């Protein structure tokens, strides 16, 4: 089965109202080219589940979002995501605000086909008071109450990987795959953009196969988009684009706002976008951050 497709093919499989998980973490290894393709589409009313960064901010700014399931939305070095803030402060989106670890549990519950996983996380906080849909349950084994973190079932997950073969074997070569394996497992369909398509033989080396964090049966489609994580990082290949994120954040304070940002950068397709941000070589030359 050849699972190669285009970003447009991916967006053609999305529907209004879907729940979409997005891999990566803050400004790190986000499937931004796929997000941009959604920006170019008329898809709307999405529920987004994400360890959020500009993916969430841009989709909010573009009016694509009905609800965000989040523990944070941040660009790390710019702590507050400008367009997510605007959306929250204007009351234009619904939210399910949870703890980072609760999100992991919710993805695992969905992956394992169970309705919830108990945790004490959230007890005593506004996580439980502001989320009436998250139930607190008794345990048959003790006298405590426990948060029943519900499964976060996803219609679709979008992930950016370093490499993939055309059958959907995906490799994350950087030091951290974040929760992307759980996003892949929690979703009915998972679409993966990657910096590089490789032959299946690439993975025969156990050292390479170790970096394949979910099975190809969890991958619905793969899209080769070199530099597709820009402006987020794809360690070890390239870092996140600090000047670009500053321009993005700055746009929120300008009158033209997000539309101005889009007009400057988005383009009609990824080729145009990459030209607008200086080209693929410039993306690949972005230094890795030091933490």
């Amino acid at each position: 089965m050849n699972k190669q497709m285009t970003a447009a093919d991916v967006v053609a499989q999305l529907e209004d109202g879907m729940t979409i998980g997005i891999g990566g973490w803050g400004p790190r290894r986000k499937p931004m080219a796929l997000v941009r393709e959604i920006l170019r589409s008329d898809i709307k009313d999405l529920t987004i589940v994400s360890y959020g960064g500009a993916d969430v901010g841009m989709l909010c700014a573009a009016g694509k979002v009905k609800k965000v399931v989040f523990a944070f939305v941040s660009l790390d070095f710019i702590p507050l995501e400008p367009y997510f803030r605007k959306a929250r402060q204007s009351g234009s989106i619904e939210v399910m605000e949870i703890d980072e670890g609760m999100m992991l549990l919710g993805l695992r519950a969905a992956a394992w086909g169970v309705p919830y996983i108990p945790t004490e996380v959230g007890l005593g906080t506004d996580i439980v008071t502001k989320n009436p849909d998250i139930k607190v349950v008794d345990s048959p084994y003790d006298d405590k109450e426990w948060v029943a973190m519900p499964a976060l079932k996803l219609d679709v997950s979008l992930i950016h990987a370093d490499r993939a073969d055309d059958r959907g074997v995906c490799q994350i070569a950087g030091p951290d795959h974040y929760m992307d394996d759980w996003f892949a497992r929690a979703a009915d369909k998972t679409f993966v953009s990657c910096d590089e398509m490789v032959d299946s033989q690439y993975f025969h080396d156990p050292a390479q196969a170790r970096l394949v964090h979910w099975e190809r049966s969890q991958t619905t489609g793969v899209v080769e988009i070199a530099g597709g994580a820009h402006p987020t990082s794809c360690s070890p290949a390239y870092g996140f684009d600090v000047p670009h994120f500053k321009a993005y954040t700055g746009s929120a304070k300008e009158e033209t706002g997000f539309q101005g940002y889009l007009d400057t950068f988005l383009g009609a397709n990824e080729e145009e976008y990459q030209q607008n941000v200086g080209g693929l070589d410039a993306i690949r030359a972005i230094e890795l951050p030091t933490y």
Partner: protein
Amino acid sequence: MTVASDYTLAELCIVAASKAFANDGEVLATGIGVIPRLAASLAMKTSNPDLMMTDSEAWMLSEPNPIGKRGDDHVQANESWMGFSRIFDNVWSGRRHAMLGPTQIDKYGQTNTSALGGTYEAPKVMMLGARGFPGNSISHPNSFFVPSHNTRVFMEGECDFVSSIGYNPERLPKGHSLDDIDIRLIVTDLCVMDFGGPDHQVRLVSLHPGITAAQVQENTAYPVFVEGDIPTTEAPTLEQLAIIAEMDPHNQRAYQIKDNPAGERG
């Protein structure tokens, strides 16, 4: 061990904050921000070599990394893979101590990192979100660093959004005791506090040189428990300053407290 005569307030805070980790044994020390991270690094290199720290990415280290760009000859002392998903196995094991900087800390030790003012549906100011605060606060010890001690941080009433559980009897979950909650030190630009007062009231532990208990109370919107003579926060030693300088070669600590004041004020 020679006490330094010349040090910044940031360095004083780092040394004071490092004490939070001294008796922790073998736990993951997570210091978010320059001063907490240097505090954990200092503790790991002096008072508690059993501490564990990460590279803030995906590796546990046997020696902490200096902050900022490191020379090409720097060999990172990895000891195990520690991707973000594995952090939670540590959080939930309780074998972790985090030091963080919330935006609000109320009289219960509850904190807010999420939203200020307005309604929850449309807050006046949206901040980071709850992040890992709910899990940290119920799973393991936590300390706080506050670079500007004022009544906006240590505010009146209850936090606008409670991101982390504190000593609030009204929010105590069934089957839990307030003693299960373990807030350790609060290090600010004025003083060191904890929640060791009567009924988990916030308590003054030490005053930074030149600061008075009255100043602390004035900048805290709820009563601070003050008992007996409050000691002065211990000045760094030359050895400690040398380690701090080694761990912060680009002097990022100079930018953490407004105007980078000297440690001895007034």
